[in-house]
């Protein structure tokens, strides 16, 4: 089937920042994204698991498929939010089926 080049961006971020991140993405023109739950992880700020948490803490993963030319706008928007916070951003090359959707 015919596919079109795209970028897959995966952002792991603290749950209290999720709303701010998706708002920033929408402001930057990114209208498609998916939020996945995260059970735990490890990074510079140490190891954590959902079980060791109370309240709203914890992290989520936000996945966006975008056209390659939109990548920079997206990264800048995301970076403003993630910058001072715990979290990581990874980008992979991808392909999507219906380019008109992105």
């Amino acid at each position: 089937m015919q596919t079109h080049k795209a970028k897959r961006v995966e952002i792991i971020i603290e749950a209290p920042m999720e709303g701010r991140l998706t708002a920033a993405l929408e402001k930057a023109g990114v209208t498609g994204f998916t939020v996945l739950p995260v059970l735990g992880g490890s990074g510079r700020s140490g190891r954590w698991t959902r079980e060791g948490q109370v309240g709203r803490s914890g992290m989520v993963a936000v996945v966006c498929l975008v056209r390659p030319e939109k990548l920079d706008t997206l990264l800048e928007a995301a970076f403003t939010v993630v910058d001072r916070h715990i979290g990581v951003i990874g980008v992979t090359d991808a392909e999507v089926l219906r380019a008109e959707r992105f």
Partner: protein
Amino acid sequence: MQDILSLATANLLTPMILCFALGLFAALARSELSIPEAVAKGMSIYLLFSIGFKGGVAVADHGLDATLLAALAVGVILSFVIPFVAFGLLKAMTRLSATDAAAVAAHYGSISIVTFVTGSSVVQGAGLVAEGYMVAVAAAMEAPAIISALYLASRSGGRAEKMDADLWREILLNGSIVLLVGSFLIGLVTGQPGMARIEAFIVAPFQGVLCLFLLDMGLVAGRGMRGAKGVMTPGVLAFGLVMPVVGAAFGLAAGMALGLSTGGVALMMVLAGSASYIAVPAAMRVALPDANPSVYLTLSLGVTFPFNLVIGIPAWVAVAQAVGG
């Protein structure tokens, strides 16, 4: 003093405290025992709803006390003031950065709803009746401390995010405030007829649910402790034990100045001496992201919460009885 000690010892052997201890033990021994997050959250919703509703019904029964507004105002003031005291103590006792100290101070100015729920249950077990509106005071004390802490942080050159409308809404309409105040109002409006409909759900099983909930709190506190090596210097640890006593002293003074009942004074001590571990940590992650969450979570959940559960609450109840009786 003797009385206070023996009371505290009696308190140690209740199912609630022992459940907390079991959770602590399981976590420290690295057992995989765990209570699903959704169930723990469900139990906390039950506890908040129940305590808010019962408070509202109590106010409906006894009529609106003239001291309600005064108590709310005093609660707000305490929440504003205590962070300054805590910040001063932290600067004197520890080497925490100004940002970390401000974040910790916010937690101690605010309150822990679970400590309050447990305190209510102990107050009731001691045969005391507290003012029903204390749940509204609890809700009012959650947020002001955050403002003081952000002021402290920026005064010391820390990079506090500016408080935008979203953050205000998140803090003032956080889940536990809305549920507590909402169920308080529902209890107030429906009164005894409302209580008669749902009593079998919110009154009889309350202490049992609290046991399982404290089991989970023990697991969470214990897992937090295990991950907090290195953060806990002796100074920081000492602060976590001293500050609830200082806070409770403020609460005692406030409660007596307001002329609250013995139970009400005890609960005011419990509130002022407790430290938040849900609403404030989430706000700090947004507003003061440079502060180290391990420091404030371990202090609040791993040191002060257990201290209050085991020693603080029974002691404050005994003090309130000695002073008020």
